[in-house]
């Protein structure tokens, strides 16, 4: 099912996400203190190229990482057919990238 290349990609994206998610988690804990408003979120992020890159790369990594993982799970637990699984995971990949980049665009630009 998984070969060295896909594996490498999945592990690399996991490593790349480590600081991103850690930051995100911490941010959420502090930002959420007392509730979130759109203004707060947008005030922090809008117009910042830094945050655009931060969340943009996060989206790409998460999409690739998640899609590969999804493909494996689909194969092992639901449909043991690599073609079907690949197609489904590519669909997930595209959805995640599409919606994700749109969200990044929305909150940062």
């Amino acid at each position, binding site marked *: *099912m*998984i*070969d*060295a290349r896909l594996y*490498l990609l999945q592990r690399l994206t996991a490593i790349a996400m480590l600081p991103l998610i850690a930051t995100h988690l911490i941010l959420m804990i502090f930002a959420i203190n007392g509730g979130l408003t759109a203004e707060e979120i947008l005030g922090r992020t809008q117009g910042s190229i830094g945050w655009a890159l931060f969340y943009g790369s996060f989206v790409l990594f998460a999409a690739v990482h998640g899609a590969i993982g999804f493909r*494996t799970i689909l194969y*092992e637990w639901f449909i043991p057919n690599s073609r079907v699984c690949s197609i489904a995971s590519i669909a997930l990949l595209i959805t995640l990238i599409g919606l994700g980049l749109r969200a990044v665009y929305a909150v940062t630009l």
Partner: protein
Amino acid sequence: MKTKAKHLQVTIDRFDGESHYQTTHEVPTRDNQTVLDVVTWIQQHDDPTLSYRFACRVGMCGSCAMNINGEPKWSCRTHVNKVVDSGLKLTISPLRNMPILRDLSVDMTQFFDKWTQAVGYFVPTKTKDDPLPAILPDSRDRAKANQSIECINCGICYSACDVVAANDAYLGPAALNRAWTLMNDERDGGSKERLEAVSSDAGCHNCHSQHGCSTYCPNLLAPATSIAGLKRQTLLNVLPWGSRDD
């Protein structure tokens, strides 16, 4: 003594070539009694149609493994006292992940085919005309290879692994463990083919570190650790700056 003889309540998952069913048996207990002794007693005294496999009876040949109360174990070295509770109940079924031939005998063909597929055999760099190589017993590679070497091909790890269950092609812990042993063997010349084999889409990267293999290996080997080693080695092989894992 005789009047109050205790009996084990044994349930066995059976397969007669066509249908699956269960049989139950009452087996007299003895002080010294392994699960292999229990199935032997049943076959000899209660139900001659029962089929099982053994050879060495001391944990060396790896032919007698079966699921005992749901866990894969070697039957010849599993004392009944260690697996039954006060209810004296014992459930026995064949190993998982291998086609059942009859009752407790499974077909290990694929298991060994994968062994070969993983290049789980030595590729020589010397011949019998060369002197025996001097190898320091404490050298790093030697010690590492030694850790994973004492495998009896019993298939217990293979049977404990849910990835094998889910993915027919997966080479499985035993073959990969052997591949890793050979990767650390400085005398071997097959690492290129072997790395390729274990990097394929049937290879080591399918392992999700479930650790069923290391949990159940009767020889206390750790295939999970070996497979992790292979994963590292294959990455170093793919990465431009990588070479040898040390």
